């Protein structure tokens, strides 16, 4: 797809065309769309692909890109880094709000080194985004890493995930009760007016003092999980949820069995 084609499509302000471009995750900045929202440029034509949501987020409810109807799919690419190279299988599964599988990408290749960097690519089909309420549904991305003996890899892992879909989810990692995971929050919404502030939430509650881009989360009781959110607020008091993740603690009979 060439830049010229994209630019031409933008100028027609066709909703369908815009959606199509969002699916392909390439978009050249052009004027306001029919919703009056500024469209953002996710890559710099001078070279390089910076980052960014495809559209501004000040009114997600009215933007079909931000709240794609069921059946719309989004390309995604995710990475999981396994510091000690212990894993031999990895999966990234998208679940809808009913905990039904929507999509899965598995990775078997590894670098043979340490750390391993695992790549997941695929299409995520949004099915339960709560467009009517103007909120983003809590679809989840579940990432697991497994050893060659079938057991969960207990290494600390970090999953970074980015999508053109504002319901982007940072991911999930399974760790043992004695491990921690570094969650890295990122935001790519370039129309936020600096300065911006960060705040982490756990299961809907604000985490006191956790106002940096990174959060170290520790494993809880076996077979437990927590839902983390990373929110960004700009100087205009606009708040966006820049990422979500579920942090699950592996089920271990005893702590020793987790190692």
């Amino acid at each position, binding site marked *: 797809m060439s830049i010229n084609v994209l630019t031409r499509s933008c100028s027609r302000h066709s909703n369908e065309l815009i959606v199509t471009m969002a699916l392909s995750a390439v978009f050249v900045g052009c004027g306001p769309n029919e919703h009056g929202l500024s469209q953002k440029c996710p890559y710099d034509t001078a070279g390089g692909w910076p980052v960014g949501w495809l559209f501004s987020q000040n009114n997600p409810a009215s933007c079909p890109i931000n709240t794609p109807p069921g059946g719309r799919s989004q390309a995604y690419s995710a990475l999981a880094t396994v510091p000690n190279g212990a894993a031999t299988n990895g999966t990234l599964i998208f679940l809808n709000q009913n905990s039904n599988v929507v999509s899965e990408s598995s990775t078997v290749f590894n670098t043979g080194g340490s750390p391993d*960097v695992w790549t997941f690519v695929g299409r995520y089909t949004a099915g339960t985004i709560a467009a009517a309420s103007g909120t983003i549904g809590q679809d989840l991305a579940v990432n697991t890493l497994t050893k060659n003996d079938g057991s969960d890899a207990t290494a600390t892992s970090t999953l970074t995930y980015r999508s053109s879909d504002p319901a982007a989810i940072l991911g999930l990692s399974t760790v043992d009760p004695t491990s921690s995971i570094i969650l890295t929050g990122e935001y790519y919404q370039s129309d936020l007016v600096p300065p911006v502030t960060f705040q982490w939430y756990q299961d809907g509650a604000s985490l006191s003092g956790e106002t940096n881009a990174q959060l170290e989360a520790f494993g809880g009781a076996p077979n437990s999980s927590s839902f983390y959110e990373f929110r960004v607020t700009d100087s205009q008091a606009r708040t966006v949820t820049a990422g979500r993740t579920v942090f699950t603690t592996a089920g271990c009979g005893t702590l020793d069995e987790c190692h």
Partner: protein
Amino acid sequence: MLVAHPARRWPTRRSVGGRLVTAVASVLLLAACSGDRSISWPEPPVTRAQLTEAMTPEAALAIGPDDRLLLAAPPNTGRPQISGVQAGAFAVSLAKYYLPYTNTHWDSERGKPVDYQKLAVCGSPLYASSPFERLEIDDPAARAVPLQKALGPLWLVNLCGPSGPPQLHIAVSAYSTDLRLDASGVIEFPPVSGGDFFPEAVPISGLSEELPSAEAAVVLSAALTGRRVAAAPELIAPFYINESPYGSRWRITLDRPVRLRATSGESIETSEIFIRRTRLAQPVSQLWGPTPVQPESVDVVYIPQSRVGEDYNAYLARRAAETRTLHVRRLPNMPISFLAGGILP
């Protein structure tokens, strides 16, 4: 580590062709050992004279009119495979439409932003044969599971920008017949997919690892061993747990055995040597020999994938019940265990 033994078995003939061969090998070895951080791209062309000098007359019949070796067509594995052209198109699409989401990692690995939107296939995709039999669970009538893709044959694709050396290496499973490109050239993945790609950014620092061409591997092998190459080389994929797909090795058949010796003292006599890529600026050898005793199989864990619409907890229960270890048999005459080699100074 293996070393050629003895060093006195280096070529003694000093014909013009021999000098060329030695010169090519010297350049490669110097690049590997001197800490030179520049990437030679494109790879210095190997001439017909060099190839002819390095190969037996019978093997030299495989030299094509373009002075490139005619490599064997992908073998019939009993499962449909994509072509090298298709693999290249998938790799370009992956780079353009998917990897930019995680550009921070790839740009960091390269040391400079990757020109995602300007990449094109450079050179011919190389086919790496699988050393394994197909999984016992593999159903050729259905799409290949990710584990089968990782254990199967691969296409190794280099992606370059408008100029310069490759920016990305992308290994594509030859069994990725379930992928499609839409009208915009974007890969359409099945809802449940995986095991199709293994990308790697190429560092601009010169710390990259580049697999030599088949022609360069032949010339290098002749120079290292003092033997002639008796057949067109074959690229063999490694066991995925031990090495990345770029650990694929050229199998080089020599006209006479050569004795290789490991630094540990172990020595083998073999008519087959293996050439793999070398990390420039690091003393890692390109020369490998097969271990005398090869494992008959490897153990891998099979984890069933989820199904669209499946309840996640139900899937977890099914996964726990169906996950099992599979014994994957090695194909006859396909080594999977190697000893790293080198040559005596």
